[in-house]
């Protein structure tokens, strides 16, 4: 057991049971999975991606590349969870991943033996023969070997949420700089959000044995956090990672609300926040970097800072005999701290020659680690001393420090490039990379605690000034001001064997050398060729080392070599949180008409049209197939009277003295001449000359029109009209508003519709309501609008009532219709009725059709300009051989037509070169007792009466058809006028 007897920010009185790979262990509150496993003596926690090498925990933070686990069971199982940030909860089930059959015995470790042949990019040079073998053999093997953890394969039913937050100052990171910044800004009265990815505020103050203001640093942090939580204008968000910087001071952040709980008790697992901040202070600290040397990837080899974190924060000794390998003063601190805790330190190896650490352990300066050995974990290391001799040292833990990289990633999210600082051998954020963001403390390359405190305060003061808030002068705590000297040292030169740079993806110094040899020398080429930096840590562990190696090889400096671009997210974000609200019915709103409940109660089968739910058909007793219902409903309309809710059509109320002129400009035909009390059918074009939409517009008064649009185009048409009114012709005195949801509209269609309405409304004869007439009526004391319009070709009316009366009107109309031998009809019948008449939907107005294509050239007024007029006259659109809308009906032995069939000439092969068009809409017409269809056919208007084939190659149907007028039923339109 590696738990140190005392100390640490854990509650030793409580034990939490959990399992890892089936083995039972216990943890304490305050432990992460990694600290608990280390405490239990578990070093082996994973396998690498490519060579399946044994892997132990490397870090103590979210940058961990090795200790990734599957957490949870069943549909809750979450792969690739970093053991270093995962809080242990009661009964947690953790499993290692990417190994078979077990973590200790992984068959795929054979890859490691083949590694001479599996270097960077080897797969680009092979697996090409025989040709078919890639998909059949090689790729499946590669795919099975690749990947890390497993998704459950089941729907993620966990609850996730999204939220917005707004603040004056967003402070990212709650270490010394962040705490001081938040405190200062809070004192000044700013609205502050302090977000920290950890579950305790304090950053490295919790990991080091230091003092601030004469107190242990972790206690000072806890006291500051408590003070901040007491300020009403400050919000402290723990377990919250700011993942991305976006335009306009908008930041993405994920808060892990319940991941650490055995039972979320109804709370969301995670919340994805969009935080809008006027000022942002980036105090995200720094990440330590490793040094590359042969076999530096064994379990037990860890970053020195992590070793200190485990010791001080978790009370865990990462090993019993620890060696330290460093190029900076932090390594010394590691040795001292461990010695103070009673841990044996077997060696301190410093690459620097000009230093003389005064530490009570074997010290090697100007030395380097040149190899390690041990099965499934380090047991020994080889040190090359300053005189070139190699010495063996026993250690079950090797703490490595190669210096620190400021956590500047967010500052690259908007394309900013970092600045190289030679004195700390690291990139630091370039000021103004993100508007109104300032980096402070270690994130800004200032590694002294005092410096961080001061920078945090200064940044907050600057923000307060800009916000014109109160200036405050908080006390600057007493703290250590040591920066920690570092001498750049990236990899041990002149060694044999493989020195790892990217631990997860198995990229070694040799791979970078190979990339260089093959001229993949630009940073991007190097990254893409070797996969370096594409691991789940996004290169936080590996990029700097690889850059340095490439810089050495090319003879350029590191800043000349460049960096790859940091992209959001800072740490990977669960899709459940990013996509919160999208699962199940949440993806889009649902729209219901006022008669929805009535229709469902009637047993209607519902269908969705756009976002709307509509009745598709109303099965009658004994009907078992939709066609039976549909055919009956069609006949009902043709022979008696049918009732249909058509409320989903877009309805736009247009008013003003210039409304008529306005409509003239947006429709192809004239509307200013329309008489009050009349309705006209209109076609609207886009400015490129293609049909945008059709519909009827009624003139209710001199300055008052009501336009209908198709259901799907209601939004786009509204937007288009607003564009025309506001952007093109603001001088026109016209206003419009959508009233789609304000009015319920119900069609009463069929030869008996007049009889029906006569009983309800009174006189609706041709004299008072002629075809295409409209007017106000009263139904049961409710003011309603009556339109004599028909989408079925029959004598028909549509009644509009304020939406609240829709359901009641429907009930009344259906009752009356049934008394006349009619009843309700749904979308299927409506579609048949309109196809029989050749009326259009967006299957025909598909955005590629001109007015001429649709056979309605007569509706293009020559007396005025209108949107799309000029463009519609382009030569290609006047070509008589364009695809034109026609009707088709089978005339051969095959009586069926399928929607989406392509048209070919009678004797032609059904190949692309012979395609004459396609079928847009088909139905069985009970009126004509056969299938009919609408189709686009090249030069179709001139081919009426000819035969053609509708061919469906997908479903093997080849139908000989006659080309006919699309008006199958009552082409003269007498019935509607009757």
């Amino acid at each position, binding site marked *: 057991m590696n738990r140190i007897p005392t100390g640490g920010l854990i509650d030793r009185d409580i034990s939490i049971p959990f399992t890892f790979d089936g083995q039972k262990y216990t943890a304490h509150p305050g432990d992460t999975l990694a600290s608990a496993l280390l405490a239990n003596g578990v070093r082996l926690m994973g396998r690498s991606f490519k060579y399946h090498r044994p892997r132990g925990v490397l870090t103590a933070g979210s940058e961990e590349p090795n200790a990734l686990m599957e957490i949870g069971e069943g549909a809750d199982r979450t792969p690739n969870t970093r053991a270093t940030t995962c809080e242990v909860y009661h009964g947690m089930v953790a499993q290692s991943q990417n190994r078979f059959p077990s973590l200790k015995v992984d068959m795929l470790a054979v890859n490691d033996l083949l590694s001479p042949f599996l270097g960077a990019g080897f797969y680009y040079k092979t697996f090409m023969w025989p040709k078919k073998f890639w998909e059949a053999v090689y790729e499946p093997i590669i795919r099975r070997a690749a990947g890390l953890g497993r998704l459950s394969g089941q729907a993620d039913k966990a609850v996730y949420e999204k939220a917005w937050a707004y603040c004056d100052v967003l402070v990212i990171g709650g270490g010394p700089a962040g705490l001081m910044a938040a405190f200062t800004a809070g004192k000044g009265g700013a609205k502050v959000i302090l977000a920290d990815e950890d579950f305790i505020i304090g950053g490295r103050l919790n990991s080091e044995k230091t003092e601030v203001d004469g107190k242990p640093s972790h206690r000072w942090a806890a006291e500051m956090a408590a003070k901040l939580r007491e300020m009403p204008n400050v919000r402290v968000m723990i377990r919250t990672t700011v993942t991305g910087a976006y335009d306009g001071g908008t930041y993405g952040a994920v808060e892990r609300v319940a991941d650490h709980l055995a039972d979320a008790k109804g709370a969301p697992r995670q919340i994805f926040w969009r935080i809008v901040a006027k000022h942002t202070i980036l105090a995200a600290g720094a990440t330590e970097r490793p040094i590359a040397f042969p076999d530096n990837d064994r379990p037990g080899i860890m970053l020195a800072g992590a070793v200190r974190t485990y010791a001080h924060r978790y009370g865990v000794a990462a090993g019993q005999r620890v060696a330290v390998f460093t190029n900076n003063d932090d390594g010394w601190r590691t040795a001292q701290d461990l010695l103070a805790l009673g841990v044996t330190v077997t060696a301190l190896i410093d690459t620097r020659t000009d230093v003389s650490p005064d530490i009570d352990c074997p010290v090697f300066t100007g030395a380097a680690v040149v190899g390690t050995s041990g099965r499934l974990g380090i047991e020994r290391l080889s040190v090359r001393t300053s005189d070139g001799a190699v010495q063996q040292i026993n250690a079950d833990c090797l703490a490595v420090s190669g210096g620190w990289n400021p956590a500047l990633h967010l500052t690259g999210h908007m394309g900013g490039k970092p600045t190289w600082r030679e004195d700390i051998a690291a990139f630091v954020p370039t000021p103004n990379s993100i508007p109104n963001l300032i980096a402070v403390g270690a994130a800004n390359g200032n590694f002294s605690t005092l410096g961080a405190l001061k920078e945090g305060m200064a940044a907050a003061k600057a923000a307060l000034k800009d916000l014109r808030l109160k200036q405050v002068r908080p006390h600057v705590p007493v703290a250590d001001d040591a920066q920690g000297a570092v001498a750049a040292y990236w990899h041990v030169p002149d060694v044999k064997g493989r020195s790892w740079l990217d631990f997860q993806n198995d990229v070694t110094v040799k791979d970078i050398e190979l990339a260089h040899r093959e001229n993949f020398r630009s940073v991007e080429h190097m990254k893409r060729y070797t996969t370096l930096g594409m691991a789940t840590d996004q290169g936080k562990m590996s990029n700097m080392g690889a850059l340095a190696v490439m810089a050495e090889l090319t003879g350029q400096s590191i800043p000349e070599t460049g960096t790859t671009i940091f992209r959001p997210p800072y740490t990977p974000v669960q*899709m459940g949180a990013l996509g919160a609200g999208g699962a199940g019915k949440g993806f889009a709103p649902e729209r219901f008409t006022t008669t929805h409940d009535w229709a469902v109660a009637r047993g209607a089968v519902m269908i969705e049209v756009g976002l709307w739910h509509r009745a598709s058909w109303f099965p009658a007793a004994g009907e078992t197939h939709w066609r039976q219902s549909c055919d009956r409903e069609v006949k009902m309309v043709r022979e008696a009277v049918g009732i249909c809710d058509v409320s989903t059509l877009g309805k736009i109320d247009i008013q003003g003295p210039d409304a008529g002129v306005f409509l003239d400009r947006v429709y192809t035909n004239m509307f200013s001449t329309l008489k009050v009390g009349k309705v006209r059918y209109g076609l609207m074009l886009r400015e490129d000359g293609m049909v945008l939409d059709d519909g009827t517009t009624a003139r209710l008064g001199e300055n008052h029109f009501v336009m209908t649009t198709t259901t799907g185009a209601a939004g786009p048409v509204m937007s288009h009209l607003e564009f025309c009114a506001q952007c093109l012709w603001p001088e026109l005195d016209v206003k419009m508003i959508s009233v789609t949801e304000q009015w319920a509209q119900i069609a009463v269609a069929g030869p008996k519709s007049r009889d029906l309405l006569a009983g309800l409304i009174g006189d609706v004869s041709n004299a008072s309501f002629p075809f295409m007439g409209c007017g106000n009526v009263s139904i049961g004391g409710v003011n309603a609008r009556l339109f004599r319009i028909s989408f079925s070709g029959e004598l028909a009316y549509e009644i509009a009532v304020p939406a609240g009366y829709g359901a009641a009107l429907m009930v009344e109309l259906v009752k009356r219709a049934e008394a006349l031998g009619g009843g309700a009809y749904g979308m299927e019948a409506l579609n048949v009725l309109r196809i029989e008449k050749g009326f259009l939907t967006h299957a025909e107005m598909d955005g590629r059709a001109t007015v001429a294509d649709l056979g309605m050239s007569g509706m293009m007024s020559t007396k005025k300009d209108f949107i799309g007029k000029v463009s519609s006259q382009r030569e290609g659109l006047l070509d008589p051989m364009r695809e034109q809308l026609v009707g088709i009906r089978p005339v051969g032995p095959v009586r069926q037509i399928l929607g989406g069939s392509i048209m070919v000439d009678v004797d032609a092969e059904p190949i692309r070169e012979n395609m004459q068009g396609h079928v847009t809409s088909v139905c069985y017409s009970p009126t004509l007792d056969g299938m009919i269809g609408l189709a686009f056919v090249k030069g179709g208007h001139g081919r009426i009466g000819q035969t053609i084939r509708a061919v*469906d190659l997908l479903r093997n149907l080849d139908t000989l058809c006659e080309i006919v007028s699309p008006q199958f039923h009552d082409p003269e339109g007498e019935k509607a006028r009757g």
Partner: protein
Amino acid sequence: MHYSVLQILKNGLTGNKGWKPVWRNPEPKKSYDIVIIGGGGHGLSTAYYLAKTYGIRNIAVLEKGYLGGGNVGRNTTIVRANYLLDGNLEFYSHSLKLWENLEQELNYNVMLSQRGCLLLAHNDGQFDDLAWRGNANLATGDDAVLMSADDVRAYTPYLNFDDARFPIRGGLLQRTGGTARHDAVAWGYARGADMRGVDLIQNCEVTGFRIEGGKIKGVETSRGYIGAGKVGMSVAGRTSQVAEMAGLRLPIESHVLQAFVTEAVKPVIDTVISFGMGHFYISQSDKGGLVFGGDIDGYNSYSQRGNLPMVEHVAEAAMALMPMIGKARMLRSWGGIVDMSMDGSPIIDKTPIEGLFLNGGWCYGGFKATPAAGAAFAHLMATGEKAAWATKFNLNRFETGHVIDDEGTGARPNLH
């Protein structure tokens, strides 16, 4: 250097010291027969085909950054030939045929994986549209299978068939569709072109054209003037800027298109799936990452980064379509600048300036077009004639009305 198993064994046993540079770093010559501006996928494949098919060796590809750094290096790697309209049909069909032989042709494994490409329909209208598309694909000689909802369920059982907002009505599967390793395509063409003597010149930005008497003479670059008999522009994302240096104005807007990848997970998706209610498409890479994308962000942009609304929308679509993805973590998002043309289809044509040629306007289709676009552009530049598979991508089609509007959304680039 020819790649083979033997080479890998030989080099593996000798410390991999024997591998040679995949391309040279030549200094620019004073002039070339043909200069291609843009060392992305299309520029490199154009150079390759010019050298290979037409025997023209005195060619330079000028790249302002690094080879393959254009959209070929930042896309969702999908290859398919299931377009709808004439013009696009034959072009992408030809492209898929070139893809199928690319590895052998280039002696470079671009990892074309014909794992299928499934388009979903969520209502009857969409289903009929898929049928039309599938029939057109079959008529073009490509493959297509129309699937019922049950077929889709059998093929991709992990999609949402329980409580979907837009239940799956059916689908159209193109079995020969799939994915390829995007960077490898650029590198394979680069290597092939370099082997044939093409000068690939990186870090060389074109800053102007020299045009005399309406004829191109050469290009000004950050590395000096380079004379050229002919110049081809293949600079997706910057097409308007480069063309403007020659005084041209184009029917193109630049937009940012984001793409996303999750952390690697064990294989779960063995095909490419496109959601029908909102633009969302997903596949799984050989490394295990779920690779997906959606619509362009929707506003003009030259910044290679997007914003949260589209990130969230795409993630929501992912949750709607494939709810198991909730436990996967998005690892990385990136943005590429795409040329959005005014009808959603590309342009491969001469320009009004003699000797200056344009390849651009690729919208969402540039990656899958790489072989056929390069081959067509090479044919046009070498012979002055349109290639048989790319006769309709004319620059003047907006003037004449012969647009190719697969989406039917008109001159609104952000709706294509």
